[in-house]
């Protein structure tokens, strides 16, 4: 009977999640062989999210064993968008840079105070530059 389901799954398509060779039913009699009756299918939208199909739990006393299916977020997440420097409006940035002034340096700088002043000034300058640049989103198929 499952043949028709396999045919339908092949056509749509759905992907069989069962691990080949892992039995899910162990008959109590000594004549019958273990079989794979407990099937799980995932469609193309879900199959990339499935990280495992397994039988990690002990026997429950039934001739069938529990199957665990786990979905996880994609391991490779897209990086955040970055400034598209090639499309930077040079004229506008130039005017903004002319008007840009750094924060006054501490009169008696300690190493920590100097570090904070440097970080703050760098952040202000970076923000000014990125505010004039459009963002670009890397393509999922880009090389790393």
């Amino acid at each position, binding site marked *: *009977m499952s043949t028709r*389901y396999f045919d*339908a799954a092949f056509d749509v398509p*759905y992907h069989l999640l069962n691990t080949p060779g892992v039995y899910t*039913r162990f008959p109590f009699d000594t004549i019958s062989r273990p079989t794979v009756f407990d099937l799980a299918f995932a469609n193309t939208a879900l199959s990339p*999210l499935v990280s495992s199909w397994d039988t990690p739990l002990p026997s429950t*006393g039934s001739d069938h064993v*529990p199957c665990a299916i786990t*979905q996880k977020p994609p391991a490779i997440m897209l990086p955040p968008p970055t400034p598209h420097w090639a499309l930077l409006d040079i004229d506008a940035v130039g005017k903004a840079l002319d008007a840009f002034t750094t924060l006054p340096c501490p009169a008696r700088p300690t190493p920590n105070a100097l570090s904070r002043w440097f970080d703050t000034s760098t952040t202000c300058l970076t923000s000014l530059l990125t505010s004039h640049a459009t963002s670009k989103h890397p393509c999922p198929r880009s090389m790393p």
Partner: protein
Amino acid sequence: MENLFNRYTDSSAVSPSFPIVQHNCLGSWDVFLTLFHSFTMLPHPPLLVAIQDPPSRQSVLLTFLGFMSFAPPPPGRPRVAIYVSRTLNQHLSCSTVFHDSTEMLSVDVYSPEGLFGFPHRSLRVTLVYLRTNRPPSCYILPEQVISFLSYPHLV
């Protein structure tokens, strides 16, 4: 909620993954209890438990702490049931989808902000009980179960 993954990571009450346990031909109360107690052996407790032949009393499903149970409506005792973790139900919208058969049940998990960091907002889990000792007219056709869906679907 950024997405299901982030929420679960933040709360640490449930796993960052989405574990589902399936047990076919479960049958008895003893097996039911053994199954649910064995979840402590998993790194993360399952959020959905799909069961064939769930134990019931007068067509009412047995319950287990931390889970909500769903089964097709009467007549007849339920042949399939899906137990939904209360933790999952608190965070996301879970709704049952009944079909024409008492041997088929679906649960839709919905989040308006997407699941798993993907743009999909829904996940459907369908449990089907195919019994070979039924007359062919009672078979659940593959077309009723396996159809094109734009969002994730587990059968």
